[in-house]
């Protein structure tokens, strides 16, 4: 990707990130939608707050390349989303449950890459569900 494109993508990301920041704690409002044809991303599934990226065909904003063939880098989501904000948004009120925070867990702290529990173009179960019957009603995909 050209540097100027990369910068534009980053700028878009930051703008959307700021918007997402306002919505932190309200993840239940995000919806998966099918989007109309955009260049190179026809019918692709994604979060509503990423809609502008799809409309502009900006795959590179997350994938770093215009025509992705694989997953984005693990740190990609965190170019826009703030880890501290995510941790705060899902922090349990009860002190006894503090390690059940999916963004700051007993087992792995804050180190689980986002894509282990979230899929942008596919549905995913939280990693915790491998062993625990936790309820995360706001986790949709």
């Amino acid at each position, binding site marked *: 990707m050209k540097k100027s494109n990369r910068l534009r993508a980053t700028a878009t990301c930051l703008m959307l990130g700021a918007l997402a920041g306002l919505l932190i704690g309200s993840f239940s409002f995000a919806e998966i939608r099918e989007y109309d044809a955009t260049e190179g991303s026809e019918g692709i599934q994604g979060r509503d707050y990423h809609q502008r990226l799809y409309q502009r065909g900006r795959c590179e904003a997350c994938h770093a390349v215009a025509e992705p063939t*694989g*997953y984005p*880098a*693990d740190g990609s989501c965190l170019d826009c989303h703030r880890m501290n904000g995510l941790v705060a948004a899902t922090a349990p009120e009860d002190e*006894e449950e503090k*390690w059940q925070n999916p963004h700051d867990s*007993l*087992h*792995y*702290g804050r*180190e*689980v*890459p986002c*894509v*282990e529990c979230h899929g942008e173009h596919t549905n995913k179960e939280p990693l915790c*569900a*491998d*062993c*625990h*019957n*936790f309820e995360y009603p706001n986790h949709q995909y």
Partner: protein
Amino acid sequence: MQTRKEGHPCFLIMVNKTASSSRRSFLKGIGAAGIAGMTGPMLVGAAQASTTEWNETFDLVIIGSGFAGLAAAIQARQLGLESVAIFEKMPYYGGNSAINGGLFAAPGTPLQAQEGIADSVDRMVADQLAAGRGIAHEPLLRHIAANAASALQLCIDAGSEFHPYLQQLGGHSVPRTYQTTVSCGAGITRPLLDKCRELGVTTRNRSKFSKFVQDEDGRVVGVQMQTRYYYDREVSEGETINVRGRYGVLVATGGYSQNIELRSAQDPTLTAEVTSTNAPGATGEAMLAMFRLGAIPVHLAHIQSGPWASPDEGGFGYVSNYSIYNFPHSVAINRTTGQRFMNEIADRKTRADAELANRDAEGKPNPPILITSYDHAKEHPSAKKVLKYKVGWKFDNLESLAAEFGVPLEPLRAQIDEYNGFVREGEDAQFGKPMEKIAGKTIEAPFMVVRLWPKVHYCQGGVAINLKSEVIDAATGAAIPGLYAAGEVTGGIHGVSRLGSCSIPECMVMGITAARSVAGSVT
């Protein structure tokens, strides 16, 4: 810690060299075309150093980020190895250790002194040998027990916190088991990982081992790794790199409980229908690659199931630790008969086998129930979670309990009365459970109940190592130069049945031992 040198078959090294030299001459004779079709141990699953371009070089390359790998990395840095790297296949660190129970057995600890418990290396080894049923490796058990307390201290120094009390687990003759305050191995792996980074250890996730690299003398000089590996899709989206381990490669990759093909080939009862407590990465590829190099496979068919697991949640969950804590003062009941069917603190294999025999008339699993006085059960921190997440239940009286689980009420009542008599008399006439530590703990309403069904938990088998954590060549009996292994990937230490809380000390001590051997080999 003093690394024991006995049992190291130095005299066999010459034999090894002779064998590999003659083999090389033979290979030269048949030419490259012939080599491609060969299946000799030097060429399958291993690359040759002479044709390898190194992407990176470290003093010590460690594969796996569980207890053994982390302990080795810390010790290696402390002993002056300048560059140490840990490569982890999974997207997150800690391996199976990060989801285990955090139970650490050691003799001669401060808590034992405080509680006035007489214990010794000999006594711990004797308990382990009994569970090993004649095929455990006594020198290795002795080495681990002798160094367990100092390994525990390494965890404490790194920031691990432990409950202020000891537990007596199944098969142990005295209370000698510490447990992290978070009741999980993560209470050790996370501080150790932090410590590694503080000491400048390189840590890489999504890095999948693909093969060893050997030099022309057969020494393991590095590994080939796939990067940006996604275990769930089994694809690597990064480049394949060659990583040189200047002084050695340590394999600390854990067991193969999640490799259904491999485990069910060893034990046909462990099909896909039997679930496992293990992390999904426990599939054993690096162990298989060591066998291809010529390592001795030991006890692969001895695969342990955890008798404290619950069919009502995945993996280790919350019930496992709850049951481990509560087994001594609880009764395990067959739901068809309303009777006990085992010593609740027998070793793991005895209990798992007894539980698996709980079947309905058609032979289908009929998971037994563990009944505990709520007043005793609630003492363990997991009890609240067990109730909250509906993997265990509280009952005000025996009638409602029996109705819920379809247990015949009168036989159950008679059994509990009989058992309470054993508690008062201090002797279990039914199954010989040691009663000294549960004096006064009769079973009374209200009750707490969980269901039990074994899950594949631990592989006693793996590669043979010596007291220096060196991997032994089956053909020669000598160590494979440059190759070390520690933790569950090694085999034969525990024999038929590993006692609970004896894996963490093994991983820690043998990881530390490997680092000392590598550091000691630097000239």
